[in-house]
């Protein structure tokens, strides 16, 4: 690989950056008030503000929403990729394993207690995701951690339990917060505002860099922990770092837009088929391509219903769940 590898990395990154930029441009230009490609292009190319309604819509509603979608897509894709490497199971994904559900419980508690989005609700979401992760690892501990079925079954159970707790919390909520919780739960990106997106970006970008830095170690992890260790990897530190960073990323996305499932399954699978299993390529590909995928899913969520909108989480689940079933069936052979 050597220089060949760097060339490939550049090529993949450049191509996916263009794809992401294109998707974001489309996302900014199209919306419920109609399409205005001209306005959005002019806005992107000049700083002059032309106080108009279309401009306000683009700047204050569509732009933060598209950026939120890109960040969420990147974080969830990367989360799936890391879980799959760490657990050596291509079907692992934060949503399927119940990590997202756990952080949703934390976040809902935060909302009910009346905390502000940052830091209150976010910290609660992070705590929730870590707690489910520990529960999951404890349930499938010992040698069984790496067995496909045992891990997935544990995940399904954790997820079912989380759903029950979420229902319980919802049923106990009576006032206006109920509507907030329900919409947010379904994976809704329409509440994006510039401030929140800024905080999320500041939280996620260092995670992306750290994970790229650890990408070759993820390659070594796929050879089994014994072999990775004898190739110089400090398994304990690396495992804990990856788990904590990933839970943090997942809880940050859950905190800002609720439950968006299966992105972490679809994107890493797609890129593994196209680009091969090298994580040094897959990490940047998941960040850029996952971002583009989420922006496009959100765009579909905006334009598909003839009236109003649907949450983007509905689209990702409708694409992802059938794919999961297909992969599960294929891996069983």
């Amino acid at each position, binding site marked *: 690989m050597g220089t060949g590898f760097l060339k490939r990395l550049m090529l993949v990154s450049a191509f996916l950056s263009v794809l992401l930029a294109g998707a974001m441009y489309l996302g900014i230009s199209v919306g419920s008030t109609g399409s205005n490609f001209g306005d959005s292009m002019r806005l992107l190319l000049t700083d002059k503000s032309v106080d108009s309604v279309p401009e306000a819509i683009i700047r204050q509603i569509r732009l933060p929403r598209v950026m939120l979608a890109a960040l969420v897509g990147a974080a969830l894709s990367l989360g799936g990729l890391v879980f799959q490497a760490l657990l050596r199971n291509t079907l692992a994904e934060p949503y399927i394993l119940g990590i997202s559900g756990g952080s949703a419980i934390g976040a809902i508690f935060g909302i009910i207690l009346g905390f502000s989005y940052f830091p209150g609700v976010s910290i609660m979401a992070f705590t929730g995701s870590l707690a489910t992760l520990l529960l999951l690892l404890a349930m499938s501990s010992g040698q069984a951690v790496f067995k496909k079925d045992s891990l997935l079954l544990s995940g399904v159970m954790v997820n079912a339990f989380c759903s029950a707790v979420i229902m319980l919390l919802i049923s106990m909520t009576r006032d206006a917060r109920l509507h907030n919780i329900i919409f947010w739960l379904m994976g809704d990106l329409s509440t994006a505002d510039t401030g929140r997106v800024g905080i999320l970006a500041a939280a996620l970008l260092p995670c992306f860099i750290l994970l790229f830095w650890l990408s070759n170690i993820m390659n070594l992890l796929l*050879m*089994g922990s014994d072999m990775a260790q004898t*190739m110089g990897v*400090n398994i304990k530190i690396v495992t804990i770092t990856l788990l904590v960073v990933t839970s943090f990323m997942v809880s940050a996305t859950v905190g800002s837009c609720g439950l968006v499932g299966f992105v972490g399954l679809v994107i890493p699978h797609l890129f*593994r088929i196209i680009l091969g*299993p090298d994580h*040094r390529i897959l990490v940047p590909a998941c960040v850029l391509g996952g971002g583009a995928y989420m922006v496009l899913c959100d765009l579909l969520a905006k334009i598909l219903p003839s009236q109003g909108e649907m949450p983007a989480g509905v689209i990702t689940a409708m694409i992802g769940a059938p794919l999961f079933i297909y992969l599960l069936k294929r891996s069983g052979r």
Partner: protein
Amino acid sequence: MNPVITITKLNYSYGKILVLKDISFQIQSSDFFIIIGPNGSGKTTLLRLLAGIISAGDGRIDVLGDYIEDYNRKVLARKIAYVPQTVPVDFPFTVSEVVLMGRAPHLGILGLEKEKDLLRAKQAMEFTELDHLADRKTSQLSGGECQRVFIARAICQETEIILLDEPTASLDLAHQTRIMDLMERLQKERGITIVMVSHDVNLAAMYGKTLLLLKEGQIVSQGKPGEVLTFQTLEAAYGCTLLVDESPLGRFPRVTPVPGRLMGVKD
């Protein structure tokens, strides 16, 4: 004599079960050292301790003159390579990608390879006769080919010592000798110290320079194949009747387990 590994008064237990008891021995430089013994005698645990995968609670292991616990993982990985019995191949890496991973201890954190590293990988694949499979996915290989890939990876790691956990288990006869020939060439041509755990006493007799026989976590016997593989020690260790004679192939013992029906035992 020049020991590369020295083990002193080593004990190891899983919970309350003591699996290695008061083990002390040395492995000399460029030896072909084979650890044999019945199931559950602690062979694999011993190998994992030598690889630094698990650390000994009690006792001491020195690698190339230094206490193993004092090594930085990456530095240790430049001294000792390890080939586990089975390696997951769920992820579709190609043969050359896996072999190249052996360079990891010599590279920076992102593992960016230079020309020299590519050359080492190429040489390792030639040595193990894998060059024609370089771009094949490891998930499409046979068991014997897979084992050769992971040995090539260990060679690519450029260490003085290579540890192998039953590399011939589950391979057919042709692949068994092919793997063992390969290891013998590594030891003879490059002076690499080979430490291997094996179930197969006859392969151990044919290839090993030094054998270590374990039973219930203790050393029963250590020395040249002719000294260790006597019927008294083997019968004591394995608890079954064995015929030990000289192999028609050369000056090393041949071990044949005797079926119960020939012993007049009725079932």
